[in-house]
């Protein structure tokens, strides 16, 4: 029966080609626009690390100026990063099963003379727990161990891209790379790794790809490394100067993550932080009200406004656009169906029930929805490719927006819903006409 209805629907579409093209184009445009912008927003909003987001927490402490809150859109939030002093102190806690502060810097890499000139590269300094915490995939070797954190031992992890550049893609574990003024031993090479947002550091351009070199955090002192990310300071320098002064200062520049296996650990860790801040208050620091944050991945993304507001606005506008297309479709279908009411009259006179007529017309609408939806989906693939191309020129990343299964399902769902919503009334009107009226028009 369905097949029969589909055949009739197909014939009906073919009969008035111009009108059918108009109808299908309308719905295809609506689906293309709404799928594209739903996908754009989804690319930012989706969980970038579903395997780990349940246990990872971002730590913030309000060590800011007693006289006024940390500047930003939401004045209830503490600084986005922690100070060096606070990081070293709170990392003494054994409540987190894994933890670590991190930051990025830029240093010269001196490749083999055959490969080329020295080049400056962004490097992330982190602790050994970084790799298991963020589920970082390895092609060769692995991260370093706690002993290397303590040393610090001169070890590095390279991205696959950096390994291609320096070692022609071969297994380079055990080989040496010269960075700035010392030699580092390669202990691991990453497999392809590009989370949708650079979740571990949302303080700056977070749709960038991850850094290409990782080294132990504790090189910060011997190499006197400064952050190339944001560093927010306030108040008096306290007479401190130079690099040690910077480490002792109230400047906030480190991203701090902890892994807490369960709710109990979370509340225990929050208590620990509260006790730490109260203790610091005795020493004259932390003079603002206690405002510690142990945020889930989702909360941290919300606070940092990872989803650009324009994408939400565009999604709303594009769904309304689809609404207009559907309303438009109702009008066109109504015209189309009523124009061939004589044919319906003949069918009714020959014994077709109202339900038969109704179902037949709804099937025709759904066919339009599906055909339009398929074209719309194809158009949105093209639109997303264009957006990726644009992104590549501004952000050097051309693989950001792509349709995933939830978005394809959404698109199909929207097509069927639009077809149904637009078709119900015209189909009902058509089946309600009495056969006599249909025939009398002949």
């Amino acid at each position, binding site marked *: 029966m369905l097949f029969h209805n589909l055949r009739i629907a197909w014939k009906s579409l073919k009969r008035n080609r111009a009108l059918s093209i108009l109808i299908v184009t309308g719905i295809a445009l609506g689906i293309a626009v709404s799928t594209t912008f739903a996908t754009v927003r989804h690319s930012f909003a989706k969980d970038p690390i579903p395997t780990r987001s349940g246990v990872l927490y971002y730590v913030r402490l309000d060590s800011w100026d007693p006289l006024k809150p940390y500047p*930003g859109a939401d004045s209830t939030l503490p600084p986005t990063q922690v100070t060096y002093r606070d990081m070293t102190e709170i990392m003494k806690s054994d409540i987190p099963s894994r933890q670590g502060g991190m930051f990025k810097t830029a240093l010269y890499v001196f490749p083999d003379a055959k490969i080329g000139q020295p080049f400056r590269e962004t490097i992330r300094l982190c602790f050994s727990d970084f790799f298991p915490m963020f589920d970082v995939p390895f092609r060769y070797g692995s991260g370093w161990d706690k002993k290397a954190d303590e040393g610090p031992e001169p070890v590095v992890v390279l991205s696959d891209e950096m390994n291609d550049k320096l070692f022609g893609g071969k297994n380079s574990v055990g080989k040496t790379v010269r960075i700035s003024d010392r030699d580092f031993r390669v202990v691991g090479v990453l497999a392809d790794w590009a989370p949708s947002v650079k979740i571990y550091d949302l303080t700056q351009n977070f749709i960038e790809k991850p850094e290409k070199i990782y080294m132990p955090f504790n090189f910060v002192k011997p190499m006197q490394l400064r952050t190339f990310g944001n560093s927010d300071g306030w108040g008096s320098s306290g*007479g401190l100067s130079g690099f040690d002064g910077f480490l002792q200062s109230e400047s906030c520049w480190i991203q701090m993550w902890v892994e807490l296996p369960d709710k109990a650990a979370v509340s225990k860790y929050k208590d620990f932080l509260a006790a730490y801040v109260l203790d610091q208050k005795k020493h004259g620091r932390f003079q603002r009200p206690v405002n510690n944050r142990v945020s889930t991945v989702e909360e941290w993304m919300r606070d940092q406004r990872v989803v650009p507001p324009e994408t939400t606005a565009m999604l709303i*506008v594009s769904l309304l656009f689809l609404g207009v297309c559907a309303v438009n479709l109702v009008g066109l279908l109504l015209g189309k169906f009523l124009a061939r009411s004589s044919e319906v009259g003949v069918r009714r006179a020959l014994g077709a029930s109202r339900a038969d007529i109704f179902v037949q017309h709804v099937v025709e609408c759904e066919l339009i929805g599906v055909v339009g939806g398929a074209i719309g989906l194809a158009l949105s693939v093209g639109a997303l490719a264009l957006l990726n191309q644009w992104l590549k020129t501004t952000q050097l990343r051309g693989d950001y927006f792509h349709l995933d299964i939830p978005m394809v399902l959404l698109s199909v769902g929207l097509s069927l819903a639009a077809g149904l919503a637009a078709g119900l009334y015209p189909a009902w009107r058509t089946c309600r006409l009495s056969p006599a009226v249909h025939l009398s028009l002949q």
Partner: protein
Amino acid sequence: MEFGPILRSMRRNKVRYGLIVAEVALTLAIVANCVNMIRDSRRQMAIPSGFDDDNIIRVASRPFAPAFKEDGYLDNSLRQDMEVLRAIPGVKAVSNTRFLPWQGGGSSMETRVLGSKGEMLRNQVYNADEGTLDALGARLIEGRNFTREETASEALRMRQIFAKARPVGADGTPLEKTSQDIIISKAFGALLFPDGKALGKRLEDSDGDQYRIVGVIDRFYNPYGWPIHEYVMFFPSYSRNFVGGAGYLVRAEPGKKAAVMASIEKALVASNNGRSVQVQELTQIKERFQARTALLANILSILIVLLLFITSLGIVGLTVFSVNERTRQIGTRRALGAQRGDILRYFLLENWIVTTLGLALGILLAFGLNVALVSKVAGPRMEPGLVALGVLLLWVAGLAATFLPALRGARVAPAVATRNV
């Protein structure tokens, strides 16, 4: 006029006309809000920096040779770089500064009027030399510029003061306060001294270190993460170190930018190859900074065109349908003496009524959608003028979409009326 018959016919076909009313209303709401967002984007992008953006080139020198770790070597190479850059034909001005316009950030600090005990105000802060204002194309409106001698001696003096920890007093701030001369923007001056002149006045920072205003520039706008885009303080110093390298702003004479750019890297590396050199046009940096806003405006423009297309399609469909259904009525009217113009006018009027109803509803929707967008996503408030413009646009689009099908209706021959009876 045929108001009576039209309204009666509309009442009999509520749904069909209702659909067009809804479509027109939604279209007006979306178009008005899109245009509103586009205008906001354009407005943001059109804010002038106050600099000669089109002729400025940014040069970054990043040392890797260990010799650059030594202060004297760094100073010499900086002087040498500036000489090399000045000697390139077509160069109008050269400056060593950490300031780079249009990168979406920079550095900032907090100050207040000396002795005011008031709130600390945040401002952008960058080093400048005698060529910075010239290289930017910024206009000094009061006071004086820095000199080359001043820049060199101040750089040395401050470096010595900050080379070691400074003894602090009971309040935790350094005992000995420093004082530097600064140039500020007019907007920052107005913020600090709402009812007086800024020139000659002093500021202090959280350490009690002082800043004397010796110059004021007309305009400064550099978008920043915090709302301090127009507040700046320049202090005389050179900026260079081993890790960060040195940054230069070079202003080319009009029309010479490409030629200047082409020779910079070669000239600098030839004078010292212990570093790498990066050369960028300021316009490119600006474009990258504005790319997202520009893209948004373009997408919204495309959406508006598509939407008007869809809506016109709907109106064409309705009119065709309306004409087909009434072929015999038209014939009858024509047979009874109605002119073609009467028929045409009838359809145009019918459409005009439907569109106008839709627009009336759409005005409410446009403001409603704007309120929703502003509260959910932030954005500009709706300007009533834009809604009015949208109404005009849709009136015209509606009439244009009706015209051809209605003309076809007007061509129905009177004979048709009798044919099927």
